[in-house]
Structures are given as C-alpha cells and as structure tokens.
C-alpha cells in the first residue's frame, strides 16, 4: 500500500466527514425554517442574515451548558451511549459512492471511501448497531422514562429492519450484487431502480423513517408520554450528540435511498454532459446531482414531519408486522416471478 493511497483516502474521509457534519448542522436550521414556512411563520432570522448562523449559536449553547451526570446512572455507559450513537451514524457514509471516479492531476480517484462487495449488508449492520447507542443511553440513565423509550426504540428498529431487509431483497434480485457502487452504476442515465421497484422503494422509505426515529415514527422521543425520551437525563453536548446523530442518520438514509433507488449520481443526459465537461468536472457535477437528490430527501423527511401526526404504539407495530412485511414478501415474489418470466422468454 503506497502512501499516496493512504493520503488520498484520508483526505476523502476527512472531506466526507466534514460534509456530513455540516449538512447535519444545517439540517437543524433547515428543519426549523421548513417547519416555520409550512406553518406560515418565519423561523430563526436573528443570528446573521436569514439566521444563517443559528446552528453555530445552537452549538455554542450546547457546549456552554452545564453537564449533569445523574449519580444513580452507570457512568461509563452513560458517556459511551451518545458516543456510540454518533459513531454509528457517521461510519455509514464510508461505503456510499458519492460519484464516479474523478480525474485530478493525472490520477483517477474514486469518490468512495471503500467499495466493499457487501456494501448493502454493511449499511444494514451499521444501522442496526445505531440502536445500541439509544439502548445504552436509555438504560444507563437509570430513569424509567428513558428505559421505556429505549425499549420502544429497540423494538421499533428491530421490527422495521425486517421489512427493510425484505424490501431490499427484491432489489437485489434485480441487481445481482451487494456492492453499492455497482448498484448505482447499473442505474446509468434514466434506468433508476425506483421505476422498476416502486413498491419496494415505498416500503424502504417508510422503514427508513422508522429507523431514523423520525416523525411519524418518533415514538422514542414522544414528549407527551416519555418527557424527552431516551435522552431525558442528558444535557450539554451529550444531548447534542444524540440530536446530531439523528440528523446524520437522516442524511445517511437519504443518501442510501438516493443511491439505491433514485440513481445516485446518475441523471438523464449524463453521457453528453460527460463529453462536454470532461473527466474532471463531469463526475463532480454528478456528485452535485447526488447531493441535490439527498437534499430533496432531507426536505421530504421534514415535510412529512410537519404533516403527519405520530403513530400510536400498537398502530406502529400493526403497520410494521401486518402491513409492511407481507407487502415486502409479496414484492419479492412478484419480482422473482417477473424476472423468471423475462429470463425464460
């Protein structure tokens, strides 16, 4: 392994890490702005022009707050919980293909940290690890509301992971690969998977709302029943970590949805653009398109949050186990039959 490779990867990791943190930061701002405009208000507009410095002010506030660790809590796990939540949220970005290889200074650099051949499985593994941060934090708080919320989060995530995995299987039947890079490359131009797998995408999207604990499935944070949810006892930057992890999760799941179903960095007319812009700028333009799709998904997440009321717990479980899982299985069967028919004739 030469040092150029290490430096190249290090820069790529740093850039992606920085971008995901900045996007998560400005998601909090965007959330408040979107909420405001959807409710005929203005939202934060005091810190800087249009309130653009609001995330910095919020971050400063989080750092300055008094940090309280309850004496009855398990101190080690109490600190480990938010760290784990943020770590699991961040490492998901490692396998996402941000763009096709770009030519910089005579060197072709792939815009993906690691093209492992089980990328989809890796994402699933990271996502299911994410619930440990919530579980550990909720349990270590030694507070019944936190614990209840953590149990809710765990059972919700496990239930929806099944439907999510099943919805992906139908996609994998079509693509014949687990590598995210290859899945995206197969969707060249207009051949986006959502056109062939609309039901699968719908199931996947609903499940990713549940996996990221976003409304209408934000039961772990249900204020009316559980005070603050699993982070009731948290204060200062540990609380900030949990909130931040939620936004990074939202970013990562938007990226996964865009990559798996909406063509990633592919867009119609990309071949003529590639000729016109050359090997350096064309992939970067594709990356910009990809980020545009991600931002559209993030906006969609927020739009849904300010529209749909929270599900009741039994409704959540009914939808997951009796609605989405049978639907996902039916989707697998239909996809399999159609593929078999196409191959036969």
């Amino acid at each position: 392994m030469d040092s150029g490779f290490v430096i190249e990867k290090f820069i790529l990791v740093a850039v992606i890490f920085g971008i995901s943190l900045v996007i998560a930061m400005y998601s909090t701002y965007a959330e408040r702005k979107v909420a405001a405009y959807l409710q005929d208000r203005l939202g934060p507009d005091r810190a800087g022009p249009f309130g653009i410095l609001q995330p910095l002010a919020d971050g400063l506030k989080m750092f300055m707050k008094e940090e309280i660790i309850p004496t009855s809590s398990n101190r080690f796990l109490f600190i480990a919980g938010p760290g784990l939540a943020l770590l699991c949220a961040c490492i998901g970005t490692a396998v996402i293909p941000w763009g096709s290889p770009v030519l910089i200074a005579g060197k072709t650099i792939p815009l993906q940290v690691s093209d492992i051949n089980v990328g989809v499985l890796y994402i699933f593994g990271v996502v299911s690890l994410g619930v440990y941060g919530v579980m550990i934090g909720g349990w270590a708080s030694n507070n019944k509301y936190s614990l209840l919320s953590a149990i809710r989060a765990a059972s919700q995530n496990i239930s929806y992971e099944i439907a999510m995995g099943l919805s992906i299987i139908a996609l994998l039947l079509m693509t014949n690969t687990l590598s995210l890079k290859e899945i995206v490359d197969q969707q060249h131009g207009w051949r986006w998977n959502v056109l062939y797998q609309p039901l699968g995408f719908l199931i996947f999207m609903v499940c990713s709302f549940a996996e990221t604990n976003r409304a209408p499935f934000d039961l772990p944070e249900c204020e009316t029943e559980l005070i603050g949810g699993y982070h009731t006892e948290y204060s200062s930057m540990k609380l900030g970590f949990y909130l931040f992890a939620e936004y990074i999760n939202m970013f990562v799941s938007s990226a996964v949805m865009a990559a798996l179903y909406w063509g990633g960095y592919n867009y119609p007319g990309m071949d003529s653009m590639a000729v016109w812009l050359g090997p350096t700028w064309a992939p970067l333009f594709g990356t910009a398109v990809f980020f545009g799709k991600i931002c559209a998904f993030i906006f969609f997440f927020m739009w849904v949050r300010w529209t749909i009321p929270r599900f009741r717990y039994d409704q959540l479980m009914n939808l997951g186990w009796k609605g989405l899982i049978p639907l996902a299985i039916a989707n697998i069967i239909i996809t399999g039959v159609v593929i078999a028919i196409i191959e036969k004739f």
Partner: protein
Amino acid sequence: MESLSNKKKVLEQKPLSFMEKMYLPAIAKGMGITISHLFKKEATIRYPEVEREFSTNFRGMHSLKRDENGKERCTACGLCALSCPAEAITMIAAERKPEEKDLYREEKYAATYEINMLRCIFCGLCEEACPKEAIYLDGPIVPADYLRKDFIYGKDKLVEAPLEMKK
C-alpha cells in the same frame, strides 16, 4: 331508549375501508395542504424593525398633556389615581409659585406623578376620569426593561414634550 327531543345523533363508527387503511391517499392530501402553506404569506411581523399598525382606539403608554400655551394641564386632583383599578398611579401635589405661571395651568400642580407600568392594565379609566383632559393613553407600547424600579415612570417620561420642541 326513545329520545324525547329527537335531537340525539347516533354516531356510527365504521371500520376503516381498504383505502383508509392504506393511509397513503390521506397522507398525500395532508402533504398537499402543508406544501401549499409554503407559498402563503407568513403572518409574522419582524417586531423591532417593523411595527404592526394599531387601531385608532389602541391604548398604549400614558402621556401627560399640555394646553395650547404649553402649560401642564394636570392639577393633581387625584381622580385618576382614585379611578385606577390597579392602583398604579401616585402623585404629590404642590402649590404653584408666581414665577411658575407659564409652566402650570392652575394654582395646584403635580410635583411628582408616577405610574407603575407593571401594575397598569391599560384600561383607560384614568383617561375617562380626568376632568382636565390631562392624561391620554396615546403612546406606543411600553418597552421591556430589566429592573422593576425602571418600570415606575415619572414625569420625565410621561409629560409631553414642550411646545417649542414640537415645532
């Protein structure tokens, strides 16, 4: 049992139909409603920079009026303090000296006149009680402050500016 008034309505709770169970049509409708609000005019007024227009009978901060010669109208009769339901007004009366003839309209005047803005409920009864048309609640909103003592407004803040300055 038979209803006597015939007004009773029996609510029927039907189980959800298939379309309703799918949630999706209702969700799409709701999303349409929220997105339409994105393009509506926001109701917010950016307060310190922009002020809402008040109605003509708005009651704001009090002002102690002067007459056409610039003399203070108030004679410290105390009717405003008596009429005040919140007991926000106090005053000390004094006798006018010959050389102060241009300052005060009548022989008796208010040496100090204080309104506690934290007590005041802006009901306007002082305005109605005043026989000399000396007090009106025609000012702006009373501004916020940090200390309770700063909300006790004396004559320095209440009395109208002298006529020369107005011109």
